[in-house]
């Protein structure tokens, strides 16, 4: 397995629904997903994320451009592409006429797995995703979090090269979310390439190696989470929490200093710019309670790049 090699390649992708002069849902997107990475597609609602995912999963026909999976063109040979990918959708699309384990075994049967192989694999994946013991329940009785985990298990039944997850943790409780994050990292360790869409910044920050921010049908930034945070102008420095109003001044140490009373007898001091940590600590003296580096969050970057208006 050659890491760095592209598994998914999207080149000059355009998609227009409806009449030829209508608006474009995707207006020229380029990116690639490399083998073994977790790639995030971030963007506001209606930015073109789901359409982009749709073209990769053969459900949307591109108006222009080229999308390949393992070098295979999705429009030219959709069946070969379907053999290599798996999709975990935003909303449950589990087979409600079947039990949980039947959902997995029939899915594997579509991909030609033998009877014994699919039962073994289903049990293994149900255990992995914390669903052991609930395999004979009807999926109707499953909670949202369980359904999500079952869909991930189903997606893994045919051992796809790429697992595509469309907003995998939207609407889940914190426990389920943390569990899924761990599982996604575990899958990546096992060598599965993951691509996910989200507008949960913490999720993107924690999981993704690289992130493309999409807006109005275009990629407006593509970098590592850290690289993206660096796009924020002048948002770095040091934040201190003090027990009392500072007795000395920090003004000589930095370009800009903010002193705010934080309540409950605490004071917050933000020292912006390239600051020498030693001298800041020296000035704060024994009043210092807490200190942290100010780094823009991914959310700040996102809002900075995509603006504040509602979609």
């Amino acid at each position, binding site marked *: 397995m050659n890491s760095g090699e592209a598994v998914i390649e999207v080149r000059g992708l355009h998609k227009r*629904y409806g009449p030829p002069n209508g608006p474009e849902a995707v207006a020229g997107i380029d990116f690639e997903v490399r083998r073994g990475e977790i790639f995030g597609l971030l963007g506001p609602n209606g930015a073109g994320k789901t359409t982009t995912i749709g073209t990769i999963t053969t459900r949307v026909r591109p108006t222009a451009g080229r999308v390949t999976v393992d070098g295979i063109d999705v429009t030219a040979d959709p069946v070969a592409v379907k053999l290599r990918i798996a999709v975990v959708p935003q909303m449950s699309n*589990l087979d409600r*006429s079947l039990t949980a384990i039947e959902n997995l075994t029939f899915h594997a*049967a579509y991909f*030609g797995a033998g009877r014994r192989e699919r039962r073994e694999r289903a049990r293994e994946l149900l255990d992995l995703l914390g669903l052991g013991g609930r395999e004979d329940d009807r999926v109707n009785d499953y909670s949202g979090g369980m359904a999500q985990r079952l869909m991930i298990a189903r997606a893994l039944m045919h051992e796809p090269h790429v697992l595509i997850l469309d907003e995998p943790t939207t609407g889940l409780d914190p426990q389920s979310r943390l569990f899924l994050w761990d599982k996604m990292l575990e899958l990546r360790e096992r060598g599965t390439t993951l691509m996910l869409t989200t507008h949960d910044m913490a999720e993107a920050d924690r999981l993704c190696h690289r992130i493309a921010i999409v807006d109005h049908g275009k990629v407006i930034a593509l970098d590592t989470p850290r690289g993206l945070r660096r796009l924020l102008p002048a948002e770095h420095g040091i934040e201190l929490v003090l027990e009392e109003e500072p007795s000395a001044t920090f003004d000589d140490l930095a370009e800009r200093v903010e002193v705010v009373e934080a309540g409950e007898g605490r004071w917050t001091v933000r020292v912006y710019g390239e600051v020498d940590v030693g001298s800041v600590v020296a000035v704060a003296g024994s009043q210092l309670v807490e200190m942290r580096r100010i780094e823009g969050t991914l959310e700040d970057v996102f809002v900075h790049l995509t603006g504040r208006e509602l979609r």
Partner: protein
Amino acid sequence: MNHQRTAFLALCQRDLWVTVRHEPVSFLAQALLQPIFFLFVFGRVLPEIGAAQGSYGSQLLPGIMGLTLVLTALQNTALPLVIEFSFTKEIEDRLLAPLPVRAVGAQKMVIAALRAIVAALLILPLGELILPGGIDVAGANWLGLVAVLAAGAVAGAAMGLVLGTSVPPNKISVAFAIVLTPLLFTGASFYPWAALDSLRWFQVVTLFNPLTYVSEGMRAALTDLPHLGSGWIALGLGGSLLLFGWLGLRGFGRRAVD
């Protein structure tokens, strides 16, 4: 090609499994309740109270078989498609199985047609039980029956595919009312086509209903009553199959891939 066949068969296997293991009662109720009442009221009650001739049952039975065949096939494609495309999204896992999108549509037709054939065949013992004189299939043309069953079931399923993929989900109950009632009563199920001689305009109207050819085909295969010419029956069935099959698979492809 090989994995496409595997996927197609596995999809069929899933549907048969669900029919047999999880919902046999709902399938049978949906398919047979209406024909049982038609047979009982029209074939038994009406002759009993003198509102119809005693022999009406033997004309009715093939018509009810045809009706059951076409309606079961139609409903078993149209309804699940509407639900799976719009509400449960269950179709998505099938569309991502390794076979062409249209094959997924064709597979839906195959299963609906199989269910319809089972339902139509069950009308024979039900007729024996319900109709006053039982049924008489001594002179039946079994090969003809098989051909009509197969062609009628697939044509009905194709009509369901057209309906299920062309009507928006919020309009499906209206569409069913508009389509099903005329289909039910203009399909030569409750009267032999030849007997409509005295009502020429209606006789012509019935020729636009694919069910007419199925009902008349059943009459031709099972009875020695006068019926539409075999060539016309074959033409009507073949034409319906091609037209609705083409429209349905095209509609399915459009619905499945944006």
